[in-house]
């Protein structure tokens, strides 16, 4: 192949790749993941039940998904978590490697626990002070290893939250 032909073909292929990438950004609603809109979490249908149970809970009025599920102590950690979780979610969704009953990861649970404490500071400050004795938030293996929702079982997604739990709910229809 002539050098000039190769140049033409490779540059056009590169441009096609760029345009295709642009299309992918659009088709996957990529930019929505930079927002804090809860609807971004039901771009695909996997979290419909989590969305619906949250939307019908008392937390819906003041707390969005990211308020509980992302860390709040700085830009770097927030976006690192976003990137890691985003990678895990898209991998699981693309390869279909997730269970119908979704459970939070160990790392995710640590973040949510931090956020429970940070929002409900005035109420739980005493509990936090005594945490080393009675409630260890970090290590579930310990006998004192407890998270808030080990007792507050229904907060905020309810006790029953598999895919069949919320048929015909309104939340998922907000995304047309």
């Amino acid at each position, binding site marked *: 192949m002539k*050098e000039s032909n*190769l*140049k033409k*073909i*490779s*540059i056009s*292929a*590169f441009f*096609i*790749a760029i345009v*295709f*990438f642009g*299309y*992918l950004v659009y*088709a*996957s609603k990529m930019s929505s993941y930079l927002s804090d809109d809860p609807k971004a979490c039901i*771009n*695909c*249908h996997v979290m*419909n039940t989590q969305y619906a*149970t949250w*939307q*019908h809970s008392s937390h819906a*009025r003041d707390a969005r998904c990211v308020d509980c599920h992302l860390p709040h102590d700085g830009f770097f950690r927030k976006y690192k978590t976003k990137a890691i979780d985003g990678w895990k979610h898209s991998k699981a*969704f*693309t390869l279909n490697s997730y269970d119908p009953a979704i459970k939070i990861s160990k790392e995710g649970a640590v973040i949510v626990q931090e956020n429970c404490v940070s929002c409900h500071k005035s109420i739980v400050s005493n509990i936090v002070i005594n945490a080393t004795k009675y409630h260890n938030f970090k290590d579930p293996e310990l006998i004192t290893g407890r998270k808030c929702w080990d007792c507050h079982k229904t907060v905020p997604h*309810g006790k*029953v939250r*598999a895919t*069949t*739990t*919320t*048929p*015909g709910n*309104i939340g*998922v*229809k907000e*995304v*047309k």
Partner: protein
Amino acid sequence: MKYKYLLIVSVVAIGAMIFLASSIKGREKERIEINQGPEIAHQDRAKNEAWERYYPRQYSSWKKTKEGTDIKDMLKAKPQLAVLWAGYGFAKDYNAPRGHYYAVQDNRNSLRTGAPVDSKTGPMPTACWTCKSPDVPRMIEEDGELEFFTGKWAKYGTEIVNPIGCYNCHNPKTAELEVHVPYLDRSLKAAGLPTFEESTYQEKRNLVCAQCHVEYYFKKTEWQDENGNKQVAKVVTLPWKYGLTAEGAEKYYDEVGHTDFKNKISGTPILKTQHPGYELFKTGIHGQKGVSCADCHMPYTQDGAVKYSDHQLQNPLNTMDRSCMNCHRESEKKLKEIVARKYERKDQLAELTMDNLAKAHLETAKAMEVGATDEELKVIRSDIRKSQWRWDYAVASHASFFHAPEETLRLLAVGNEYAMKARIKLVSVLAKYGVMNYSAPDFSTKESAQALAGVPLEKLVKAKLEFKKTLEAEWIKQAIARKLISNETLKDADKESSYFKK
């Protein structure tokens, strides 16, 4: 050489992106399919049974509104009512409300709707159907709003057959909350409030109820039909221009010169309150805290693994574990006692006000009998009008004593004050004509009160029973033939009223 690498990288990237794009496309299709609710056929939207297939839990809980069948004749329980409403339909027949399931049947059975013999006779306008049925929005859509609100009640006897149900509050395609009567948004705008669509989800869970559980009147509206004939529609309108309060509504009614009826005993131009449940609820503590009607009256409930909202709308004291106990950590018994005490307080004041009002009407009648002029009675009648409006506003809606105890007691106290003012003035008017020790005749039973109000009860009942045998039977026959409703749904509806029991 470097172009070779560029080409290889680009081709590999394109290949990977084709895989991703096809995966995204496939999944997006999946999502749309999953998110698509079942669609209720357009022609079946007003038929409650048509929704059962797709929303079995909601439907069967809705159907349970047929429980609690007892008819409570309010004119028997509070005979003063017949005196207060003399000359108006409510003096004929007034029962405590029953479940949504009975809405159409109780409307047809009420002596207030009279005994029409065809589509053009009877005392009431079409507007009386407005809050009874999902067939109402269907007819407004089919005939147009002005045509719907023109003519006699009996005009739509064959069309309006399904009791309050799915289509009153839900979109038939998505089941989202939706209102289907045009007057609610109009009234919200007049009050300077956000329209239904502009409201939050939580507020929508109030506003679907506010389609009916509000104060309203029938605004006379002139229009021309397609043949150029002048018609007068009686359009349901909420008096919210000056706010959602008793005083605001009164100001509006006085401004437009509206009077519901002239009391037959005292000649007073009276405003009859409908049921300002939504307005009063908003002034109470639950309303202020952002609790919605559905939070207590349609509590979330669980059926196996499925959580849904209970559509058996009823007194939340029947569902305390799901309604009250989510927020209140007292015992059910203690809460019930608190509620009962609230009721007693209201009942005591309401009873006082009603007695004073009834006596004021009868004493005015005596003054008229002995020769008092309209001029002399003008201020007295104005006091009675104000009194009765406030009393009625406080008692006409469901459980205002609970929804808004402070506002309810305030209205009753102010109402009683106006009734007392009228009675004090009446003493001097009566004295002027030489009547010194007049005491109003007895109205302690339904019979004696209806006699004072001039209600020919036997005649009304006879005509009504004839109507039920003839025109009503024909309406139901036609509705079943047209498959608007099934016999199965109708079968328990017509068992009892204040004047018959099957």
